[in-house]
């Protein structure tokens, strides 16, 4: 797990009701690091936030962490029901 993935997991655990259910999956997509953030169904709203504000904040910080390693970062929250 990269520092970016660790950071995203930490940020999510800090704001959800079920921190033990938080997981992160990283995939290289060429220049970009894709970070998929997995959380309990009940916490989806918490990590996304009103008008997506919370996930945008997580993305913003993930970008800073990626920037330090000269990498582009994409953070997605897949819906587990899908």
């Amino acid at each position, binding site marked *: 797990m990269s520092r970016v993935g660790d950071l995203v997991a*930490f*940020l999510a655990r*800090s704001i959800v009701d079920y921190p033990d259910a938080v997981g992160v999956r990283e995939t290289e997509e060429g220049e970009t690091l894709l970070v998929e953030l997995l959380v309990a169904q009940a916490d989806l709203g918490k990590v996304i936030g009103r008008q997506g*504000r*919370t996930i945008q904040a997580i993305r*913003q*910080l993930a970008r*800073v962490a990626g920037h330090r390693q000269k990498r582009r970062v994409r953070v997605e929250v897949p819906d587990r029901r899908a």
Partner: protein
Amino acid sequence: MSVSRDEWTAETVEEAVARALAELGLPRERVDVEVLEEPSAAGLFGFARRPARVRVRARPGFGEAARDFLRAVVDFIGLPAAVREPEATERGYLVRVEGDGAAELIGRHGHTLDALQQLAEVYATRRSGERAALLVDANGYRERRAAHLERLARRAARQVARDGKERRLEAMTPYERRIVHLALQGYPGVYTESEGEDPFRRVVIRPVKGEAAEADDVG
């Protein structure tokens, strides 16, 4: 008894917790409870019942929780920056991040700093059980930005007072709009209002026409 006592026993978990709260003088939402041992059932063969044992610790305050969160983020990103002790403000707490690496936490128009502040506030509220406003600063950015916004606001107000045409400022966060409203409070010949929905909400500076009532909608 040791000074740092954090374990209590009683016949039930609830009683043990109640005892701890009474001794600590704290409400339930300001402590973390860990059940170390559930009480054993009444001894069927005459064994003595084992009491419930709990560990109860005061939660960190809002400011400390915010500081801890920020330190963790700075560590995860690997930034050469120091997170200072929280300072009390009129509405909550201010935590300053300082050092070469802190510049990277500002972002365009402070967007990164706002993101950091938003998450830190959510965490600190949940962790401490306290409600407060959090301001996170990096290398004095907030003060510089406030001074810039005040200059911008006064320049626009001067124009409005001169030509009687309203001026719309760029979209700002509630915190930044408040700085503008306060900067122009009592400015002769103009009044301010906010228009639109966040994140596009902006301050409008309007001329006071004749006997038009002065609006003072700060928000």
